[in-house]
Each structure stands twice: as structure tokens, then as C-alpha cells.
């Protein structure tokens, strides 16, 4: 269970107070797949960094699995948007996946098993000895996902992970994430600015307003659990939900201007 309660975040930028997040509250149930979508510049990344315990909120609180967040919580993994910068360029792919496990003091045999499994799961079994920068952008993000999988988190946060990859790769990665989520049963919070992506992936979509950010709407996605790039996207219900999210985001944008 992940709870965000009355969260607000203001920055002091050269004497000027910037209210990045106004007042945001929502819950994510155990094992749920929730997408957070909002207009650009609405503080999505700030929100995620607060939940990840990387940024202290100005007020309000975040509770992950019954514990108040005041630093990176146990059993929580993050996949960052900047895959190129979140991987260690001096470590090979398998060592990148392995490092957090080493830090956790896990035994060698266990680590090797988890790393192999995770790389298999993202389809990178053959690339384990490569350096991240030898791989394409999509493959680099797969490494980052493998690292998160091997870490065996109970909560997984993803910050616009596919924003910087091409459309084809993006579709593949979306399906990969769905299958990973279904197999691991993690609680997944997925931040994106892409409306289609949020509807296609999530069980619920939390829509944010422009900054100062609040929750504009919380929409359940009642599409069947088995999703398919072709069938789901041509489902009339998909189009309908997509329209709803789109309208809400447009409204949020207009309120700002």
C-alpha cells in the first residue's frame, strides 16, 4: 500500500517561491498498476522523487507499506527517465544489475541467479557482458528495468521511462512492463505525459492539474487485463477512456492560461 496524503512541495528559487506541487493525495493498493499523467511541467517528476524519498516534501506525508517516507524506503525501486545517466557506464550490463544486490549483502550464487533471471526477463541474456553505452537507448532502458526486477522490489516507481525511445521500441517496452508487473505482482506507479500510454498500461489513471499541482481526476481503466497493442488500442472503450483523459488534461492546461 502506498499513500500520498496532502503532499505539497515549494522550491525557493532565488528568493522567489515556486509552488511545484499544491496539494496531492491518492492511494495505490498492493499490486496495483497506477499511471500518473499530467501536462508537462506539472511536477510529475517532483512528485515521484518525493515518493522515492529522494526529495523531502514541504508538507504532507507519504506512507509506503505502513512506514512514513523520510529517505529512500525499503523494497522500493526506481526506473529513471534518463536511462543513459542512471546506468554505471564503467560497469558491464550484468554488473549494473548486480550492484544493488551486492550492496544488499546478498550471496554470490543467489545474486547470479537473480541477475540471469532479470536479464532473461527483459530479453537481454546475450548482452550481459556489454557496456551500457554499447547498447541502443531502448536496450539501455531494458537494463535499468532488469536492475529493478533483480532488486525484487515490492513497489516500483517509473519516471517517464519511455519518453526518450522511438515509437516501436516504446510499444515493446510497454508490453514488457505489463508482463513484468503481472509476473512479479509489484505495486507499480508509472509517471508519463503520454495519454495513450497511461490508458494502455494502467488499471487506474491519476490525472494531475497544472502547477500548483492537485489531483484533477482519478479514473479506473476497465479494460481487460490481457492487453494487446493492436486489439486494445482499437477497442472502442480504449478510445473513450483516452478521450476522457485527454479532455481532462486539456481542461487543466486551459485553467493555467
Amino acid at each position, binding site marked *: 500500500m502506498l499513500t500520498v496524503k496532502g503532499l505539497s512541495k515549494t522550491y525557493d528559487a532565488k528568493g522567489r517561491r515556486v509552488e511545484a506541487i499544491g496539494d496531492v493525495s491518492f492511494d495505490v493498493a498492493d499490486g496495483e498498476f497506477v499511471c500518473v499523467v499530467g501536462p508537462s511541467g506539472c511536477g510529475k517528476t517532483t512528485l515521484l522523487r518525493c515518493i522515492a524519498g529522494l526529495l523531502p516534501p514541504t508538507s504532507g506525508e507519504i506512507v509506503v507499506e505502513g512506514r512514513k517516507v523520510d529517505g*529512500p524506503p525499503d523494497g522500493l*525501486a526506481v526506473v529513471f527517465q534518463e536511462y543513459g545517466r542512471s546506468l*554505471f*557506464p564503467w560497469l558491464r550490463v550484468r554488473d549494473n544489475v548486480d550492484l*544493488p544486490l551486492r550492496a544488499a549483502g546478498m550471496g554470490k550464487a543467489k545474486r547470479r541467479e537473480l541477475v540471469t533471471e532479470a536479464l532473461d526477463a527483459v530479453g537481454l541474456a546475450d548482452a550481459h557482458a556489454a557496456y551500457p553505452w554499447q547498447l541502443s537507448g531502448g536496450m539501455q532502458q531494458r537494463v535499468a528495468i532488469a536492475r529493478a526486477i533483480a532488486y525484487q522490489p515490492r513497489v516500483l516507481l517509473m519516471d517517464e521511462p519511455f519518453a526518450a525511445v522511438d515509437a516501436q521500441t516504446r510499444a515493446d517496452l510497454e508490453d514488457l512492463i505489463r508482463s513484468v508487473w503481472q509476473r512479479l505482482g509489484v505495486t507499480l506507479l508509472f509517471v508519463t505525459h503520454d495519454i495513450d500510454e497511461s490508458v494502455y498500461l494502467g488499471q487506474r489513471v491519476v490525472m494531475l492539474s497544472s502547477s500548483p499541482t492537485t489531483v484533477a481526476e482519478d479514473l479506473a481503466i476497465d479494460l481487460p487485463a490481457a492487453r494487446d497493442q493492436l486489439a486494445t488500442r482499437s477497442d472502442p472503450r480504449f478510445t473513450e477512456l483516452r478521450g476522457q483523459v485527454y479532455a481532462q488534461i486539456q481542461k487543466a492546461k486551459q485553467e493555467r492560461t
Partner: protein
Amino acid sequence: MIKRILLAVTMPVVLLAVWWFASAGSTDFYFPPLRRILETFPETWFGPRMVDDVLPSLARLAIGYAAALCVGIALGMLIGANRTLRAVVEPLLEFLRAVPPPVLVPILMLMAGIGDLMKVLVIVSGCLWPILLNTVEGVRAVDEVLTDTCRSYRIRGRLRVWHLMVRSASPQIVAGARQALSIGIILMVISEMFAASSGIGFTVIQFKDGFRIPQMWSGVLLLGLLGVLLALLFRLVERRVLGWYHGIRAVQKER
């Protein structure tokens, strides 16, 4: 490929040949024929002087350089990671770095005499600054996303220092280490020229004072050769340590 090797080899061969033939009939006392210099080289340096002079010089250089690397990187990590400390010591470090290292020889002679300790200290105190200041720069430039990654995945302590800070800063550290190496060689020679009873620098000056000109030339050659060999060795180590960095640069260039 063959053409490239030919091109690379031609010039040095031509230069050596010019020297060889131009000096062949030389009767100038100060410019003996290259043949004489090369003849004296093995008898001068491969005998007892190898053990008495060459190796001790190199050992002092190695010890001083290694100590400067350890101290410079450790202090650099500390200063680079702490913003206030950095602001306090930065101008001071800039000043200390700007002092031409050879002037440290007379000071350290006062403090530590003219033994091995003085020479090692001279090398340490000259090599330290470029390594230290470059490490500070490198640690400052550690990527925030990578820092966040370490926090999220609870990579701490030794693993964090090594994999986040040292490795991130390694391109800058290596650049500093390269500057330090050439300063180290200079200081190795100068500390021995100033006051010593052994060492390459000492021996070369003795040859000079005794007007044993071919031997002196062979000493100049030896120092040059050492400089080149150490530079090659450095490049080998760099290729290993910074393989990833050059890889990234090559990939970026292609795009």
C-alpha cells in the same frame, strides 16, 4: 596499415640517421658522435649504476607518486563532496598549486635533510596538487541521476565511494595523474641534482662536472628514454582504467 607504420617510423629513423651521420666525424668536444654515446650507454648504465642509481631513483619516484595519488584522491573526494569545505580551501589550493614545485626542494631540504625522505617528500608535494584539484573537479561533476540511483538502490559505503565517486571522477583523476607524472619526473631529477649522493640526476651532474661528455649525453638519453617509457606505461594503464570513457566518446562521435 603498412603505409601508416611506414609513415610513423620514417621520421624518427631519418632523424636518428641525420644525427648519426652529422655527428659521425665530430671532433667537437661537446657534441661527440652518436656512435660514441651509444657505445658508452650500456657500460655506463647497465653496470652497478643500475642498482645504485637508476633503480633507487625510480623507486623514490614510484613511492612518491603512489603516495601523492592516494593522498590526492582521498583528500579530493573529501573536499569535492563538501561544498563549504571546498569554498574554504579552494583559493588556498589554487595558490599552492601555482607555486612552481621545484622551489619546494630547498624548503624540504631544510626540514628533512638530503636523504631519501626529502626526495620522496618533494615528489609527493609536487605531484599532489594536480591530482587533488582534478579529483575535486571530478567529484563535483558526478551525475545527479547516478547519485539518485545509488540512494534509491541503497548503494552505500565502500561500494558507493568506489562505483559512484572514484569511477565517476576517474577521467579527471587520470588527467591530473598524467600532469603529476611529468612533474614527478622533473622533481626526481632536480632533487638529485640539488643534493644527493646517488640517483640518475646526481650521476648526470657528476659526469657534467667531470667533463665526461659522452657519458653525460648517455644520461640525457636515459632520462629521455625513461620519460618516454613512463608515458607509454601510463597510456597502457589509462587504456585499462578509462576504457569505458573512451568507448563512450567514440560512440558519441559516431552519432
